[in-house]
């Protein structure tokens, strides 16, 4: 029974993995990758590690791949043309790397056969939530905290990159009703054809920047 389930999920994982590479449409590749992640999660459940399985689904299938699919949809990436490959040296490199990978897997298989663990050991609770939590907050506290700081740095870095440049204020966002004007209209010292955007929250604010003092009266007169 377990062997059958293993064959099913392992086959699914390998099949989806092949589809990720073989598909020409990036969205199909992304969906296949989700399939890989979910089959891997099923394999983790079979290995008595339900926590890792759940986290695998939440983080990879539920969060990261959503962003990937989101970007593919947003950019509307076209189907890749099946033409001559541009980077020809990649083919022998890929063959060499996969040969190394297969050799590694073979080595692991052989060594596992040699040092077989006695399967009669009592059932452990290693994969369960409680033991993982205890270990994370006692024995592996330092790596855990360092990882969280690394993630924080990544977030701050992404924010900095996204907000760099432009004259838009840090709080700038395109809101219905906000005025976005070219710089040349606002700043008298700017080049006349400078079309970089400047943001104002309201018509009043835009009028003030432009030096129109009787903005309200003007609109009433009309």
């Amino acid at each position, binding site marked *: *029974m377990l062997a059958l389930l293993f064959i099913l999920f392992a086959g699914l994982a390998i099949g989806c993995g092949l589809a990720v590479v073989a598909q020409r449409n990036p*969205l199909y590749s992304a*969906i296949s990758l*989700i399939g890989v992640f*979910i089959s891997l*999660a099923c394999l983790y459940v079979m290995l008595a590690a*339900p*926590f890792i*399985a*759940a*986290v695998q*689904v*939440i983080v990879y*299938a*539920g*969060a990261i791949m*959503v*962003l990937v*699919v*989101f970007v593919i*949809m*947003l950019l509307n990436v076209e189907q890749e043309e099946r033409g001559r490959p541009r980077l020809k040296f990649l083919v022998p490199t890929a063959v060499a790397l996969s040969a190394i990978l297969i050799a590694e897997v073979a080595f692991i298989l052989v060594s596992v056969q040699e040092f077989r663990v006695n399967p009669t050991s009592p059932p452990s609770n290693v994969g*369960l*939530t*409680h033991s993982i939590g205890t270990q994370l907050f006692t024995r592996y506290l330092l790596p855990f905290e360092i990882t969280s700081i690394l993630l924080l740095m990544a977030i701050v870095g992404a924010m900095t990159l996204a907000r760099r440049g432009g004259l838009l204020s840090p709080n700038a*966002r395109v*809101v*219905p009703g906000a005025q976005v004007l070219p710089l040349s209209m606002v700043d008298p010292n700017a080049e006349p054809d400078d079309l970089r955007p400047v943001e104002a929250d309201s018509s009043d604010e835009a009028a003030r920047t432009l030096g129109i003092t009787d903005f309200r009266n003007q609109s009433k007169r009309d």
Partner: protein
Amino acid sequence: METAIDIVLKLVAITVAFTVVLLIVAYTVLAERRVLGLIQGRLGPNRVGYGGMLQPFADLLKFILKEDIVPDKSTRFIYFLAPVIATMAALMTMIVYPFGPEITIPFTSITIPLTIARFDVGLLYVLGITSIGVYGIMLAGWSSNNKYSLMGGLRSSAQMISYELALGLSLIGVIVLAGTLDLGQIVENQSAWHGTRWYILFNPLGFVVYLIAAIAETNRVPFDLPEAETELVAGFHTEYSAMKFALFFMAEYINMFTVSMLATTLFFGGWNVPFLDLIFARGTFIFGLISALGFIFKVCVFLFIYIWLRGTLPRFRFDQLMNFGWKILLPLALLSIFITATLIYAFPNL
């Protein structure tokens, strides 16, 4: 042999649970139309059967018999896949909820738990499957080859990613209080004090954040921007007709049902009916039956709140939605974790 009987029992349990849930979902649709009618001073559907009781089946028949139109330039495979993903992800969370305590069937010694599967990470399983559900909507929007659909799909995914954070964080207070992710254990922890030791007493802020985030996760009013009909026709399911549209429709209502079940399980004591153990002994059949009915009743109260909100509130604007999610709800969720942790630190015997 044992495993074969187990598998058959599980299949029976799954069939019963899914049938009951789908029936309740069907009648939620009817209840929504009748209650909205009440709120808006009109009658609502009341002609099919007594008081409209057969209306859900009439609707179903109509969905099945309608012509199924597939847009010409759609991406066929994904267009077919999307409603399947949406419905499947909505139904799959059903298996971990404890519908009631263990009951003994009368005149026999067979004990059956009123939950289909119970495992260590039940709560994480629910969150994981819920996060898969967003693909149904995104892929539907993309594959329809329609700009309104695409806008709806993009809005929906942005909204669900944003509110998933607040939703997850609002649950941490309960996890800390219970010390487990197993939904069955969480409910049993709440059965002290004659079944009134509900976690909402210790974590009310977490519940408020959860309720708001859950409404946003299910794309219901006032967070129904993915299908805002005044701007996007019908959003991600604009191009869907007949049974495929019905699948999306069902997925939305099943999702409403599951988030209501999660709220009941985590904050309102699950199947615990207050002071029931003073009248009937725990473990008897009648105790289990009333507990299960109590669970369904609490879930239905949440469903009523959903309908009530739909009849009452206008829709958010998209930037209001994002600001609210990130700048108000997320800090509130963090605050609720802080308060709960402080409470447990101050009163370790709580």
